[in-house]
């Protein structure tokens, strides 16, 4: 596809005499896309473990009926902050980290277009989460109204720490918007000569579309939290009927952000899987152009389906029908993607290295989550599913075995390129198989208790749900422990243990990032490569 000339190696030598500063300053002041990518990824992983610890508290309380470990008010704080951390602290920063590492290397750019803003967009994130987490230790505790913060529970009926919640969401939003601007400007302006739009790797395409979604909807979220803030502290009545407002309007605004947000968390995953499957099938991706069009269609449709989260709020019947049909439509381009991956594997020459294992698990389990999503789209049946564990099962299948499995697949796929050493394959296989089994013990029975009538966000439940909940909790603990294997593997990898790898790393890997040396030098493509 391209040639990386000797000038690149020449550049390496050239740069050795002003290598990055050592110690903490390297990380605080860095404007290097690879360093910032690493920061994002480690931050996301720490947040993943933090949010995971909260999930452990939730599952411990739900291990058996009755209240044993935590009070309901604290339980609500755990479900709320678990959701916020996993969405805004784990999944989104992990994808931004991958974008930072990979987008410049994939399009032949020397760095991100706006490196100082890149530094800033990362370094405000830890403060956002410090503020959010510290509110848990304040009098009255942290936010306890669910990550969806429906008014008036989050306004008139919430604690004073709501102000901190609003502030931290604002910071997360600013960080995301800056990250998105950076991705867009980089892709538009810094592609190597010959890297035309339809030659861009799919990870780049999906991230470009994701970045536009981010810019479109993060301001809507900022608006929603600001209205919550003024309703609570400054006497406005956006969401209070007594002052002429409407609590359901909050949900319209929130989900106008919230549904595209769902695709923000899955489109880059589609990109990752579309990079990995062809490598280990040793066959070109089937239907590249249709993948690009499908991604764009999903992004466009994501703006006209938001009210499918709100079927029980009492919408007019024709609005319900519109949102049902629009939602069902999304399954068409999503189906195209899944079919294309299967067609890529068809008559390939498959091998099953760890990234491929995660990618295959992604395709199967994400599809299960997608199919339950199709069931949820059917309005009359959604009245039964809505706000039960069936929904919890659905969105954990698409977010954990979807988004998070894709992030793990990506880390295993590109980690040898980043460190120059093969990771510990034995540990990686343990991590995969333990995660795969436990994640299904954790989330699959949630479909059953949900259909049987267990509402979500409750700290205690009727006796008929007891047996399944025990299994779910055991699966949860096992999944939590499995991630410690990943932690051990990552620490080992960062200490540069393991066998050195070739530039290409994986036999079937294609693309610019596989043509530079392993580990990737601190500066790459200062002279743009030529794409044939």
């Amino acid at each position, binding site marked *: 596809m391209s040639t990386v000339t000797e000038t690149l190696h020449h550049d390496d030598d050239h740069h050795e005499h002003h290598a990055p500063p050592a110690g903490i300053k390297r990380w605080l002041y860095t404007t290097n896309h690879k360093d910032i990518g690493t920061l994002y990824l480690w931050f996301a992983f720490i947040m993943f473990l933090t949010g995971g610890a909260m999930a452990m508290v939730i599952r411990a309380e739900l291990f058996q009926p009755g209240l044993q470990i935590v009070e309901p008010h604290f339980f609500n704080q755990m479900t709320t902050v678990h959701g916020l951390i996993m969405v805004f602290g784990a999944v989104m920063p992990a994808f931004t980290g991958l974008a930072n590492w990979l987008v410049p290397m994939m399009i032949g750019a020397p760095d991100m277009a706006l490196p100082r803003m890149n530094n800033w967009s990362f370094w405000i994130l830890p403060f956002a989460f410090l503020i959010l987490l510290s509110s848990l230790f304040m009098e009255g505790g942290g936010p306890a109204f669910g990550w969806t913060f429906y008014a008036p529970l989050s306004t008139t009926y919430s604690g004073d720490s709501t102000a901190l919640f609003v502030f931290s969401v604002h910071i997360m939003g600013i960080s995301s918007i800056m990250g998105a601007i950076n991705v867009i400007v980089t892709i538009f302006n810094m592609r190597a000569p010959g890297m035309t739009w339809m030659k861009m790797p799919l990870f780049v395409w999906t991230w470009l579309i994701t970045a536009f979604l981010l810019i479109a909807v993060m301001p809507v979220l900022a608006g929603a939290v600001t209205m919550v803030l003024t309703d609570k502290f400054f006497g406005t009545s956006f969401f209070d009927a007594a002052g002429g407002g409407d609590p359901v309007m909050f949900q319209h605004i929130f989900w106008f952000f919230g549904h595209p947000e769902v695709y923000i968390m899955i489109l880059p995953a589609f990109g990752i899987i579309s990079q990995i499957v062809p490598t280990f099938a040793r066959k070109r991706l089937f239907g590249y152009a249709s993948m690009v069009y499908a991604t764009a269609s999903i992004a466009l449709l994501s703006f006209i389906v938001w009210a499918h989260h709100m079927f029980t709020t009492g919408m007019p019947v024709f609005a319900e029908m519109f949102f049902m049909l629009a939602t069902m439509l999304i399954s068409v381009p999503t189906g195209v993607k899944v079919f294309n991956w299967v067609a890529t594997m068809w008559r390939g020459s498959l091998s099953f290295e760890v990234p491929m294992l995660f990618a295959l698990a992604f395709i199967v389990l994400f599809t299960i989550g997608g199919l339950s999503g199709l069931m949820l789209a059917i309005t009359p049946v959604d009245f*039964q599913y809505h706000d039960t564990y069936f929904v919890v099962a659905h969105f954990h299948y698409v977010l954990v075995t979807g988004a998070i499995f894709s992030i793990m697949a990506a880390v295993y796929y590109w980690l040898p390129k980043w460190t120059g050493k093969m990771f510990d394959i034995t540990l990686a296989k343990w991590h995969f198989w333990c995660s795969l089994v436990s994640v299904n013990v954790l989330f699959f029975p949630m479909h059953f208790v949900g259909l049987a009538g267990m509402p979500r966000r409750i700290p205690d439940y009727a006796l008929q749900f007891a047996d399944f909940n025990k299994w779910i909790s055991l699966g949860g603990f096992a999944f939590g422990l499995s991630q410690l294997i990943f932690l051990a593997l990552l620490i080992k990898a960062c200490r540069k243990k393991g066998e050195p790898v070739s530039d290409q790393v994986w036999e079937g890997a294609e693309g610019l990032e596989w043509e530079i040396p392993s580990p990737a030098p601190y500066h790459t493509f200062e002279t743009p490569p030529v794409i044939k």
Partner: protein
Amino acid sequence: MKKISLSVMAVLSAFQSGSAFAESVSDLDQYQLNMRKGVTDISAEVYDLHMLMFIICVVIAVGVFGAMFYSILFHRKSRGAKPANFHESVKVEIAWTVIPFVILIVMAIPAAKTLIAMEDASEPDVTVLVTGSQWKWHYKYMDNDVEFYSRLATQADEISGKLDKGVNYLLEVDQPLVIPTDKRVRFLITSDDVIHSWWVPDFAIKQDANPGFINDAWTKVNEPGIYRGQCAELCGKDHGFMPVVVIAKEPAEYDKWISERQAVQEKAAAEEQRLLAMNMSKDELMSNGQKIYTANCAACHMPNGEGLPGVFPALKGSDIALNDMAAHIEIVANGKSGTAMAAFAKQLSMSELAAVITFERNAWGNDTGDLVQAKDINAALNGQ
């Protein structure tokens, strides 16, 4: 009319426990895997739609995963598979865009039919106003002068594990809603505070209770029985503790029940007037007050009166409970706007308000010695 005195409540709950909870065996299975078919034509249609969707999804999944696992088994490098060269086909892409689209239309038609039937709440025989509040339901029959609160009946000791849990743990209430079978019953659903959601799985009704707005839903129950559900929208601390219990009775039995219920409420109103003239002793006020406090106030202000710091204020040692009695009556009766403190004048009778305020002014070391009588409440509420 809307107030029920304590003694009547005690009689009533005895009456209810006789009829409603005689059936002590739960029909809900452990390891229940699927949605219930329910007891209305609509819930049966919803169940059928659910099964149709489920089967279509399983067929799609088997097809996709079948092809995938065939590849995984037979197109592997270790078996010497050589990669083919194809990587696009417009025909195939069009096929797997159009075919799913057709399947979607097949799904959408029956779904739309059921949806239209579900949303048509016209021509009701009976109308009930359902009002959610933190954390109980209130039912008001619009055609009769009958209304009451419906609260969780599971004891705190069962939740904390000090007592064995009953069969209907967390799914039992002190006063269930009673509706007739074979009649169109319309529910008007709203809320006094945050958003709740009124859900009875056997009727396939889940409708949000939005403060300041009224939603509707309807049902026509085919079989008499007891049907249990829960609040389905996170509504604060005790969201998990506000179940819905509906008893469906044959129309004749329902008519009998509603007229009995009406008589009971009339008696309660007369009792209320009689109590206005009487003074209760401190012991009586305190013991009644404690019961009312436990049922209505302890969820937020906690059984020990210390509240939840930063969320719900303490009553123990609080300025209002120790000093200004008029302010105390005012806040309990009319609530405090902009906070979670509800107006209890519409939930409790005057003698109950008197008892609970007396209790709050004399419990947990709040030794004011103040006694509040029903007539004081009457004076405060109607005299101003």
